[in-house]
């Protein structure tokens, strides 16, 4: 892990999907095992140039997600390195048995990319808004679950995934991320990143809520609260050591995920805490609700995931911590 934090966090000029497409093109050029599958969302994913450059290694199966994952598993059995994409809910829910049996149980190697996580599905609405994708993928033995936060991280993870064996789920924002890491940063899968030191409380966040969490930490600093921020981009396997360290050193934790609080990041952290060092904890995320249609800023308020909501949870958990220590 060689990380350099971005000096000022501003929206990147490149969409995540462009990083996905250009990195895969680069990987495909140097490694002929790399193949790409899609289920009629090549355009949405910006993968048309890949298809033009590598027509024989592009398999757009049409609107059939289960078949796509099965074909990907077969390509893997024949020695290929498949990346298979659809929108998050379809890449996970619709293809679950193929992923579970033909992929994971058969010990094959498929990198499944589910785009438009949680509220970023925005105008596509509830049918397309996955608050459950990380949860159901996390429940598959051997599955690694990743939520890259910006272009630098995505690029590094994609490069690593080519030579790693096993099943991977990459939860991918398609649009413009806020830059958190400088280009050239490298990451260890399974290790969280300590973004900001703090002593009173730790926010553990993934995806688009990393940026919100950092805003909260900065704003609370002015009010004398020292907030640590961790980017837990590997939801499984979870970094138990780091979680325990944060619990020990700050005594309170708030998790932030653009996902159901059930069986996602919050659950993973809670499981680690309860088996090691339970401390007061609060969870930001969909409170077991369905998605709905609207712009992202509206949905962030609707599901109480914004900076203000995170701040309230931080203050609440600090109150609980104070009560606990009398």
């Amino acid at each position, binding site marked *: 892990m060689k990380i350099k934090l971005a000096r000022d966090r501003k929206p990147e000029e490149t969409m995540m999907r462009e990083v996905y497409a250009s990195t895969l093109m680069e990987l495909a050029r140097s490694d002929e095992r790399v*193949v790409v599958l899609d289920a009629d969302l090549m355009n949405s994913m910006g993968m048309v140039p890949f298809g033009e450059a590598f027509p*024989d*290694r592009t*398999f757009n*199966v*049409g609107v*059939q997600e*289960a*078949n796509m*994952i*099965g*074909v*990907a*598993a*077969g*390509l*893997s*059995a*024949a*020695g*290929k390195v*498949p990346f298979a994409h659809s929108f998050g809910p379809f890449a996970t829910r619709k293809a679950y*048995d*193929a992923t*579970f*049996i*033909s992929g994971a*149980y*058969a*010990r094959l190697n498929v990198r499944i990319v589910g785009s438009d996580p949680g509220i970023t599905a925005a105008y596509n609405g509830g049918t397309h808004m996955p608050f459950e994708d990380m949860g159901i993928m996390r429940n598959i033995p051997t599955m690694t679950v990743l939520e890259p936060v910006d272009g630098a991280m995505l690029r590094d993870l994609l490069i690593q995934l080519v030579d790693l064996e096993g099943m991977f789920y990459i939860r991918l924002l398609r649009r413009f991320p806020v830059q958190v890491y400088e280009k050239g940063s490298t990451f260890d899968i399974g290790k969280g990143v300590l973004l900001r030191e703090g002593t009173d409380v730790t926010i553990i966040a993934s995806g688009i809520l990393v940026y919100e969490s950092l805003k909260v930490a900065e704003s609370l600093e002015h009010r004398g609260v020292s907030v640590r921020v961790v980017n837990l981009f590997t939801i499984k396997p979870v970094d138990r050591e780091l979680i325990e360290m944060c619990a020990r050193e700050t005594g309170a934790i708030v998790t932030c995920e653009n996902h159901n609080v059930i069986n996602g990041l919050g659950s993973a952290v809670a499981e680690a805490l309860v088996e090691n060092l339970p401390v007061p904890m609060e969870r930001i995320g969909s409170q077991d609700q369905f998605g709905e249609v609207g712009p992202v800023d509206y949905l962030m308020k609707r599901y109480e995931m914004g900076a203000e909501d995170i701040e309230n949870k931080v203050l609440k958990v600090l109150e609980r911590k104070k009560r606990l220590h009398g």
Partner: protein
Amino acid sequence: MQRAERKVLELRKKATEVRLTTLEVFGNLGFGHVGGSMSVTELLTALYFGGIMRYDPKNPRWERRDWLIMSKGHAGPTLYTILAMLGFFSINELKTLNQGGTRLPSHCDRNLTTGIDMTTGSLGLGMSVAIGVALGHRLDGKKNRVYLIVGDGECQEGQVWEATLYAAHKGLSNLIAFVDYNHQQLDGYTKDINDLGDLRSKFECFGWFAQEIDGHDFTQIFDAVRSAQDEKKRPSMIVMNTIKGKGCTYAEGVLKNHHMVVSEENTREALACLHEELGRLEAEIKGCM
């Protein structure tokens, strides 16, 4: 002519031996997926003993081998018998079917059993994976063929038809598939539960080179496979009309024979009957010489 007849007789004898051994294994265990294991016996015998498939028991993951994907994974026991007879592993190991820690699980597992190419058992998944393997071989310019066996009840799964559409779209002539159309599924006759109707026409209409044969007739199996191998543009589907439980006294003609409890008496009778059949075939083979 005489040579062809003799080859068929030899294969019928081999198939009888396969049934004998497989039914001994079920007898030992006291239960098993008898019906669907029996109905694919001729096909598997033809593929492995009839010179259709390329394989090497000493090098099970041989680069140039043909693949067999048993999408109806519950027919694993018949396949295990054949793999053991061929020396992929010891015949003695067949006794461990379904026992704790075994390498021979009820449904096929590529990581446990030497000679098994794909993990299956949840129905409907195998054709997609077969397509992936066939596409991979084509990308590498390899000549390996992928042989795929799906069940008729399995064809009620939607993913089978997703895959059927895609295999035709990709013109995968290196994929040769079979439906074991034994007309029965776990709960009864397929026509009563969710009728599959004319499967050959359905696959043909999806763009496959589709044939329909008697799946217990070796001559028809060989003719159909030869035509399929000659097909250059389309994936092949050979719809085999079969009898679920074929050749097993306690299973053939029985409605609920998908998974059965097997008594000692059942096994004694079935084996005796197969031994008689073996004797008749041996006599016929001698007559041919």
